């Protein structure tokens, strides 16, 4: 059975909307069939890719509001609250209950509500004498956003920035790790599986893995745990593997320009929560939705852009042919000639035509939508010459360097400032040794184009640190200075390792290769040193039963801390398809970043380290 995260999350939400009672299929009417849904901003983002407004009505929801909006009383109707457990939401709930806005309140929190907040809620409702309004309190464990069947995001902003911040204290790092762990726990609880956890040594990945392992262990020991499998030892064939990586493992992927359809739409046009707004052909913004119900998007998302244009053409021609056929059969074009014997066939054709009309209009709408998107994309690509950026970056990665003249010509040519900065950073990462004169020339060219070079300086510094820190190895883990050094050391060695991987001829991402090795379970020098955790196995017996931890797995959940994008998602899906037999890979990250967003985080990091020009105006 393959893991379909979107399906499971939708099921959970449907159950929640049915007031957490199992949905009965028979036609008996529930006494509380009509309800009002109230959510906060974060939960709105969770709900919007999954349910449309008209589907809400099928579950009996008549109205839906944001919790912060001013709401009027609607008596004799139960209200379903779906909010995050924080202080302001709890206060708002107490206020609503005391004002008797609704008949009863069913509270659902997106993750486990901590004890102190629960006591606050109790005290508040007691003092306002509205305790009879609160009917039920549930923890839904749904604090993540599912965009596709196998793509999810925790929607936690600026994770990379906070984790790599040189001024971050121990406490803050622990807080972030805690948040990530709780998000991952929600994902695993919704899927209902206890995976085997693999992660590279050192860095945030290891911290998250240990904390998650501990949390699942504690939870399994408590009563009424959420994981439906029995407590016995289940063979590794049934359990998926959860691979946790840090962004520093493979930095170039987040920065480079890619030329496939999905990454392009995300990067250039800003796809958010499967929604996109572009300039329509007749002027005015049109808003489109791109999710799994759009068949064209599903099948052609991973193609390169020129092929996508060709696909649109073919679809359009096929549609025109179908429409012509329908017209011909029913005599819609020129005058109909009614022959007696043909009449029955004619009417049958007419009926078929009328029935197939809605399907044809829908196809036309999809084709129009993608034509519009492709046109806008084409305009952007021509203006910024993104195709040459993508090609040159690819060449750089494969060859390991670039002609100086070509580099400088690109930096002085077309493209936004962000594009040039990305190209310069890619050059920096791809070249094995840093040639100071070339770097000087590059910086001069960047300053000419008024680009804020803080991010560039940051990457340069990290790379130069590698030379001096290559020998330094972490001793103890408790000391914060050692930990910071270890973090840098790991990030640098990871960057160089990533570069070495990229220098090989085949252009597979290092992430894809590592995940392949982890899934197949063959001995591999890179992945053998990875740590492995099994929350189900007893703590002591780690050595004897470790074989099952590395065995081949059927399914994998890949999690990237610090930000991911559609390029990784597409390559992981390709990997899953190419396996024999086809395996199933879920991809998740703390947030989906475009190249521009990631560079901004690097810029802030550079500024915090005190690098970057003071003279150039901020971006």
């Amino acid at each position: 059975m393959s893991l379909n995260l979107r399906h499971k999350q939708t099921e959970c939400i449907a159950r929640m909307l049915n007031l957490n009672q199992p949905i009965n299929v028979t036609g008996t009417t529930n006494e509380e069939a009509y309800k009002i849904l109230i959510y906060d901003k974060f939960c709105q983002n969770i709900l919007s890719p999954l349910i449309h407004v008209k589907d809400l009505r099928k579950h009996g929801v008549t109205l839906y509001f944001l919790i912060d909006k001013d709401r009027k009383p609607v008596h004799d109707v139960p209200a379903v609250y779906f909010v995050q457990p924080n202080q302001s939401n709890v206060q708002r709930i107490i206020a609503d209950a005391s004002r008797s806005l609704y008949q009863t309140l069913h509270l659902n929190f997106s993750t486990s509500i901590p004890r102190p907040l629960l006591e606050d809620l109790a005290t508040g409702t007691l003092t306002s004498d509205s305790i009879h309004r609160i009917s039920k309190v549930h923890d839904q464990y749904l604090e993540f956003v599912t965009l596709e069947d196998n793509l999810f995001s925790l929607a936690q902003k600026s994770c990379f920035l906070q984790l790599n911040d040189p001024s971050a204290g121990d406490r803050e790092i622990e807080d972030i790790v805690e948040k990530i762990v709780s998000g991952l726990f929600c994902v695993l609880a919704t899927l209902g599986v206890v995976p085997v956890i693999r992660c590279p040594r050192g860095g945030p990945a290891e911290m998250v893995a240990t904390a998650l392992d501990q949390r699942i262990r504690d939870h399994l020991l408590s009563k009424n745990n959420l994981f439906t499998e029995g407590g016995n030892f289940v063979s590794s064939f049934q359990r998926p593997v959860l691979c946790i990586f840090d962004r520093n493992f493979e930095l170039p992927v987040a920065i480079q320009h890619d030329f496939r359809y999905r990454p392009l739409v995300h990067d250039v046009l800003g796809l958010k929560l499967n929604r996109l707004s572009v300039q329509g052909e007749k002027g005015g913004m049109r808003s489109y939705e791109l999710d799994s119900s759009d068949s064209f998007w599903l099948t052609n998302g991973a193609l390169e852009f020129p092929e996508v244009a060709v696909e649109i053409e073919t679809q359009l021609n096929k549609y025109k042919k179908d429409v012509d056929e329908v017209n011909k059969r029913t005599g819609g074009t020129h005058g109909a000639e009614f022959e007696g014997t043909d009449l029955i066939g004619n009417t049958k054709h007419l009926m078929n035509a009328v029935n197939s009309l809605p399907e044809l209009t829908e196809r036309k709408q999809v084709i129009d939508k993608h034509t519009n998107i492709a046109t806008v994309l084409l305009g952007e690509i021509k203006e910024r010459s993104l195709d040459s950026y993508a090609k040159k970056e690819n060449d750089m990665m494969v060859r390991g360097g670039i002609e100086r003249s070509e580099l400088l010509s690109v930096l002085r040519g077309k493209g936004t400032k962000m594009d040039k900065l990305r190209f310069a950073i890619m050059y920096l990462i791809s070249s094995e040794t840093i040639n100071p004169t070339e770097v000087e020339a590059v910086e001069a060219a960047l300053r000419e184009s008024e680009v804020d070079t803080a991010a560039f300086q940051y990457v340069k510094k990290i790379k130069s640190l590698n030379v001096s820190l290559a020998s330094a190895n972490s001793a103890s883990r408790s000391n914060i200075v050692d930990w910071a050094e270890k973090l840098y050391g790991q990030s640098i060695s990871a960057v160089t390792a990533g570069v070495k991987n990229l220098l090989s001829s085949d252009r597979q991402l290092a992430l894809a290769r590592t995940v392949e090795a982890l899934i197949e379970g063959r001995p591999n020098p890179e992945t053998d040193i990875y740590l492995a955790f099994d929350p189900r196995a007893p703590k002591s017996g780690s050595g004897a039963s470790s074989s099952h931890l590395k065995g081949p797995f059927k399914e994998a959940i890949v999690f990237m801390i610090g930000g991911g994008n559609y390029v990784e998602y597409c390559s992981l899906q390709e990997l899953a398809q190419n396996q024999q037999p086809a395996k199933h890979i879920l991809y998740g990250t703390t947030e989906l970043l475009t190249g521009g967003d990631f560079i901004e985080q690097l810029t802030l990091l550079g500024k915090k380290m005190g690098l970057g020009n003071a003279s150039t105006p901020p971006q």
Partner: protein
Amino acid sequence: MAKARDRTEDFKDAVRQSARSLGYDEAKLASILASFIIHKPPQRSPFSKAAFKTLESIGELELFLLRHRKDYTDLHRTTEKERDSIEHEVSAFIKTCQEQIDVLKNSINHEEESSKGWLGITTAKANADTIAHKHGVVLILSERLHSVTSQFDQLRAVRFQDAINRAIPRRKLNRVTKKDSTETSKSGDVELSEPDELRSEPLRVQQQLLDDETRALQVELSSLLDTVQETETKMVEMSALNHLMATHVLQQAQQIEHLYDQAVEATKNVELGNKELSQAIQRNSSSRTFLLLFLFVLTFSIIFLDWYS
């Protein structure tokens, strides 16, 4: 499937703790905790009572359809008359449900109007959210009814298809049997004519004439039968098509009505706008003349004062 964690027990614990800390006595505590277990029957407004009743009736309709679906579609279980009666019942039921929904809709509109009549003072019963909620309820009910009716339409379409299919093979069967009958009659004629050659000639001629006539009548009658059956199938098809078109046309009619209402509103707005514009122009011109007059008078008064002093 993953389960959600029910924290109501923890909540009750927290309530108990805070009640004790706030100094509530045991009786109050017991009553509060009892309210968790025993829910008071909720008081419902007449609107929601009516809405629930309508929902129940639509549910009953669905059950009825489910139960009789097999009877309706299977060719051998019921006669045509029974099927007609089922159809009649179902359409009557649908009509009553539709009427109930309309009653609910009208009650909302009445409330809206009556609340507006009180100089804009809205009572607690009729605020924007409640009205929106009631509209939502009505919308849900009508959508439910719509889905049940489309299910029923599908069943009817299947019935039509069966009728058509039954008509066509009958025609084919008849044509084949007709051919057989003509062949057998011809072969019969040949056989008959030979032994009768030695019998009386005029009798044979008369018989021949009679036979010809009968044959001609047969052919005519069978062709009539043919055309009648063709017409029957065409009628069945036409009714199916009509039905199909009718649903679409009804949809379009609703859309057109909506557009018409909007257009009427738009013309009203444009008229109001025109009035405002003309008023503004008037004021503009009148103010201009006034201003000129004022300046004129001022200049003359200044000249006069200058001449005077």
